Structures are given as C-alpha cells and as structure tokens.
C-alpha cells in the first residue's frame, strides 16, 4: 500500500510520513504534477497560513489536478490547512483563493479561550461516518468552519462553540485535527481510511 504526499510547505511532512510508515505504508512526496492524478491515494497535509498554502499549490501547479481528483471523489486525505484548502477562502488570508470545492469560508475562532487552539479536543462523529469514531484528537488551529458544507458528512468539536472537526465524502476525508499526532485514536483513523480505500485501489 502506498500514499503520495502533496507538499504544501515544509513543516510537518515528517510527522505525516512517520505515521504512515508506522502503519506499514510506503510514502512518497509528489514532485510531478501528473502524480496527483496517478497516485492511488493522496494526502494533503498543511501547516502555516491558508494564503501560503494556496500559493505553494499554485506555484507547483497542483491546484488543477487536485480539484479534478477531489471532484472525481478519488481517495484523498486532507489535514489541517489541507482541509481548509477545500473552502473558497479564509478570513486568515483575504484575497487568497482556496480550491473552492465548496463555497464556505473559514472564520477565526470567536472566543475568550486562547487562540490558536492548541491541544486535545473531543470529536463527535456523524453517526453515518465511515472513518471517524468518538475520541480525542490533537488540534492546532486558529481558523475553522462552523458547519459542515452541503454534501459532506461532518464531525464536530467544541471550542467556544461548535466547529467542524472533520468532513468526509466517499473515499475523501478531511480533518481539521492532526490524525498523525492523535495517538492511537489517530493511527486507527488512518488505518480505517487506508483499508476502506484499499478495495477501490488495491
């Protein structure tokens, strides 16, 4: 089994790679634009700002093949800013254009609690989720979706109000939290996604 990781900036690729290696999966870093379409499973991690991530996708030419891959519903896992990229835009980087898979916009947490949210929070899945189970996940974010976009199944968590912890649609899973940093619960989540997408892509 293998996953291809789309680089969206430097940091955290090592953590994502290590998590898949522990799961017994071969990882590669996408270099050529054609690999985005060719790979059986693609992972889009994300750190830093919304704007810097969209910029690096555009510079590398990954925008169009990613939009096509996601529109076709092919096995794709998006993490943190990776998930946020699916939106049209974010309050974090006004003017930066997301992939626009849905029209929703991300907003900053509106709370007296410390921002960024850094730490473990309880995830409540949708009862029809194929991947997400109730449990504790590690989050590191200042911006969030407050409701799941139309056509996607949402899991939620609370931080001065409800926000979207993860969304899924078919073989696509997008997590606001970091499954690669969420201990055993996160590792089990990655394994469920890998197994579920194995049938379609042996």
């Amino acid at each position, binding site marked *: 089994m293998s996953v291809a990781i789309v680089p969206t900036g430097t940091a955290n*690729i090592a*953590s994502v790679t*290590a998590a898949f290696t522990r799961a017994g999966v071969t990882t590669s870093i996408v270099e050529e634009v054609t690999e985005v379409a060719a790979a059986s499973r693609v992972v889009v991690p994300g750190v830093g*700002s919304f704007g810097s991530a969209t910029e690096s996708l555009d510079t590398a030419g990954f925008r169009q093949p990613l939009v096509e891959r996601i529109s076709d519903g092919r096995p794709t896992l998006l993490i943190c800013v990776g998930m946020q990229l699916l939106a049209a835009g974010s309050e974090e980087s006004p003017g930066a254009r997301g992939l626009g898979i849905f029209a929703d916009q991300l907003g900053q947490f509106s709370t007296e609690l410390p921002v*960024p949210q*850094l730490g*473990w929070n309880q995830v409540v899945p949708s009862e029809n989720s194929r991947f997400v189970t109730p449990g504790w996940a590690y989050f590191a974010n200042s911006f969030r979706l407050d409701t799941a976009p139309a056509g996607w199944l949402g899991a939620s968590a609370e931080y001065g109000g409800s926000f979207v912890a993860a969304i899924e649609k078919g073989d696509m899973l997008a997590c606001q939290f970091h499954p690669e*940093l969420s201990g055993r619960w996160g590792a089990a989540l990655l394994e469920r996604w890998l197994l579920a997408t194995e049938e379609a892509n042996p």
Partner: protein
Amino acid sequence: MTSVRVIPCLDIRDGRVVKGVQFQQLRDAGDPVEASAAYEEQGGDEIVLLDVSATPEGRSHAVDTVRKVRAELPIPLTVGGGVRSVSDAERLLEAGADKVGVNTAAVDRPQLVTELAERFGAQCTVVSVDAAQNGEGWEVVVASGQVRTGLDVVGWSRQVVELGAGEILLTSWDRDGTGDGYDLPLVEAVAGSVSVPVIASGGASQPGHLVDAIGAGSTAVLVASMLHDGEFTVGQLKWALADEGVGVRP
C-alpha cells in the same frame, strides 16, 4: 473544549537524556526514544525536547535525536534549545518536530519570531520566556539564566504574541528545580495578558502544583523531575487533575 495538557520535558545532550530518567520498565533510561515513548504510553499529551548541548556537534546530534523520536512518537513534539534562525528551525521541523521553541535568539532579534510565524505558522512558533523575580515584577533572563535582560516579562510576552508567537512556554527561573511549585503570580500575570496558550514551567513537585497552575490561567503544564525521578507517572498526575475537576484527556 480542549483538555489541559500535561507535557513531559526531556533535556537532551549528545543524543542522550541528561538528568536521568528512572523508569523501571526501560532497558536504558537515558534513551530519548524510549523515554518519550514511555511518557506517551502513560498519557503524556505532548513531548518537549530541550537541547542543552552547547556545541555544533551537539546540535547535529539533536536533529538526529528528533528524527528517531519522531519515528516512534504519535503525539506532538516541541523542540527547543539553540534555535537561532529560520534555517535552524527548518532543520528541526524537517526532522520531525511539530513546534519549535526560541528563547535567547528572540531576545537578541525579536524579528525572528515574525519570520518563524510567517514561514511555519503561529501554531508552530513557541517562545520560551524565562522569568526571574525583580522587585514587584519579573525580568526576562536568557543564556540559561546567566544574563538578565532588563525586559519586563509581561511586556515581552505581549510583544512576542504581537510578533506572531502562538504559544508561550513560561519558566520561573526562581522556582526551577526547587520543587516549591510553579510561580503562580507569574503565571497569572502572563496568562492574563496574552491571547495565546501559556505553558507553566518550573518548580512542580506535587500534583497539587499542577492544579494550582491551571487555576492561575495556564492551559498546559510542563513537568520534568517529578516524572524523571520515578515518583509520579503522567497518569497519576492526570488523575489528580481530574479529581480537582480539571478536564484532562483520559
């Protein structure tokens, strides 16, 4: 609502844990990979590695240590000590750190905090603030406490948040190693003045000390010798917090 974090801290030098970690189940208590894994197993919410080596050779060992710890560790890893530039931070992040802590270099050149935040994001940029009591308030100290900077701790903390820091690791230089508990007025003063999470550090020796630090406004507590001495496990500390009504991850 996020739970309070209990964060074991390991001082490393030349690829080894210094100050000794006394775990009965470990073959080798000085191995950072085994020690991190043991604390994760006990319920540690994050691990902090502090590189205390002072030489260039030591620094390259630290990158290697981060790589090895990362390969095994499925929870967040913060690395600090000796980070002086964006490229120092990048080396640690590429080796597998999730967050990078800066201290002395930020005091020397505050713009470094902004550079790190712009490059890697605020959630990745931790500023370590070492505080020593000074009359009514606290003064920032650097270079392992050897240099007093004259900077006011609360003012400096506010400044680094404005510059882009996403988290403050606040160590009381007066309490560190004493076992007298965290400096609660210090925690209260800083946590009450900044919008980002504050990790309390320095002085904990009893579970009650952790409860007090949370009460003073920190959202995370750093623990070292009380774990390393084998006196408490992370699990026991979390039970003690939970008993006092503090939300922890089970």
